């Protein structure tokens, strides 16, 4: 049987965990495309689960790793939930293409002069990329980050999010095209300042 800590001591230890690890967890959630409030709520949910399971935590893993596992599961749950509503916005045609599937004039891709090996360009481009990816909807972010940051293959992403392969390509297509348009618009804006 686990030795259960006295309540006061347990609460104190819990407070220490929040003070020590909440920024790290928060930073990770923001990195995964959640806005401030959503990220804070995820951190709170993570700590709620940690508090409830504190007696079962035997210190086999580090506290930090344990909290991160909880947070990552929460994030996947959140993604999956948004995926269950994905059918709603997967339908319909993107406005960036005309009815024949060619680029619509206002959305023509343009030549961008970006040199990512130069620091200023890299910083500017990253800032714009952050702003533009924040505008993707939840399911687009989920697919996008799992693919391009976690390097997951489409079949793994489909399984984790419970979406069909066709929906996956449609979501990714929409996300990429939308992100590109946003990047181009903003990049040209700062180039002309």
């Amino acid at each position: 049987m686990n030795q259960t800590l006295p309540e006061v001591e347990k609460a104190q230890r819990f407070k220490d965990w929040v003070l020590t690890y909440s920024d790290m967890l928060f930073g990770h959630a923001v990195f995964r495309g959640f806005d401030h409030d959503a990220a804070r709520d995820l951190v709170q949910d993570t700590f709620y689960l940690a508090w409830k399971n504190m007696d079962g935590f035997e210190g086999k893993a580090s506290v930090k790793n344990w909290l991160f596992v909880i947070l990552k599961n929460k994030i996947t749950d959140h993604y999956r939930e948004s995926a269950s509503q994905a059918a709603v916005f997967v339908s319909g045609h993107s406005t960036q293409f005309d009815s024949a599937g060619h680029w619509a004039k206002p959305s023509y891709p343009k030549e961008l002069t970006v040199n990512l090996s130069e620091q200023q360009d890299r910083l500017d481009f990253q800032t714009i990329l952050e702003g533009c990816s924040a505008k993707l909807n939840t399911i687009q972010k989920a697919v996008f980050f799992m693919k391009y940051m976690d390097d997951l293959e489409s079949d793994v992403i489909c399984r984790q999010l419970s979406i069909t392969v066709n929906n996956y390509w449609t979501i990714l297509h929409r996300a990429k095209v939308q992100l590109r348009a946003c990047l181009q618009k903003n990049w040209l804006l700062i180039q002309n300042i």
Partner: protein
Amino acid sequence: MSCHEAVTFMLKKEEGKISFSQQLSLWRHLAICRLCRLFSAQNRLINYAMKQRHEKLIALSEKEKREIIQNVLDQNAFS
């Protein structure tokens, strides 16, 4: 092939999920479509930049941390 389809093939190609004949039609389309070539260049830029992203050190306010502690402990009291 339309530009819309060409984008799909470009994305599938990243995962090696297109057939040889699809690859050929994509090349043929890119050879004649400047806009899709520009898209392709921007696409590569985005993919590269996504890999360069790194976590920033950002903090919750002290108030938010206190609220998290309070909320969790309160929630527990009623459960």
